């Protein structure tokens, strides 16, 4: 075996090892990635398709991942881009007429409806279905921010990188999105105003 052939063989072996390591690490994160993916879209089927497209793309372009950086964020960047590229349904315009509800609105509505003035009992009034349903009613842009930060535990900076938008935009979408979510929860749990 010539020296250059030997070097080449070694390079191939190193490359294969790096790729396998990357694939294993990506697969270990699949549960966490799915938890976020599942709430970015409406149905389980959409989430599953998105996961498969994301992993297919990640495995193809693994060389563009910088080892030592946040792999979960890198995978979600691919996933959110694919989700947007899929031409998700036309954005339903937020019902601006009700957007002025403040952060105490949901509590006030629930307290009024339950007659209980104890925050533990008031939160018990909400069910898992209420949360899932209300979240799916939040317009995409706002929901993306909530899902990444409040469910995926990403920082504002990471969410900004994943979504490709400025940090200030993440913050304003998150704040407004949480208020929209609470308004939707109030409607789901207590009924329309």
């Amino acid at each position: 075996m010539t020296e250059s052939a030997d070097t080449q063989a070694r390079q191939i072996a190193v490359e294969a090892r790096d790729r396998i390591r990357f694939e294993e690490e990506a697969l270990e994160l699949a549960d966490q990635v799915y938890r976020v993916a599942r709430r970015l879209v409406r149905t389980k089927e959409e989430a599953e398709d998105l996961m498969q497209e994301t992993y297919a793309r990640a495995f193809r372009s693994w060389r563009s991942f910088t080892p030592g950086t946040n792999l979960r964020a890198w995978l979600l960047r691919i996933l959110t881009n694919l989700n947007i590229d899929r031409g998700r349904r036309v954005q339903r315009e937020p019902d601006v007429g009700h957007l002025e509800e403040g952060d105490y609105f949901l509590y006030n509505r629930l307290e009024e409806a339950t007659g209980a003035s104890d925050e533990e009992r008031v939160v018990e009034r909400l069910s898992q279905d209420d949360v899932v349903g209300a979240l799916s009613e939040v317009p995409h842009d706002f929901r993306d921010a909530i899902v990444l930060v409040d469910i995926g535990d990403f920082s504002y900076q990471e969410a900004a990188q994943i979504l490709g938008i400025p940090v200030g935009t993440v913050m304003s979408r998150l704040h407004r999105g949480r208020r929209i979510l609470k308004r939707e929860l109030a409607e789901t749990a207590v009924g329309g105003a």
Partner: protein
Amino acid sequence: MAAYDPCVWCEEVLQPYLDRHLSERERVEAQAHLDSCGYCAKRYRFEANLRQFVRQAAVEEMAPELKQKLSALRTPLL
């Protein structure tokens, strides 16, 4: 300048307070208000509980079949 209502201000800073994104001066001011105002303190505790509840309620685990499909997407070894 409009009349300053501490509860209105406190509602306004609820999210940055819980996100730990308030300046130190604002955080101290909010804390002082919460220590003396049961109305706002109760609503802050509710918000903290709500966030935890949303996080738990939103979890739906991946189907084992999907995990197998993802593994199958790996580059085959030569």
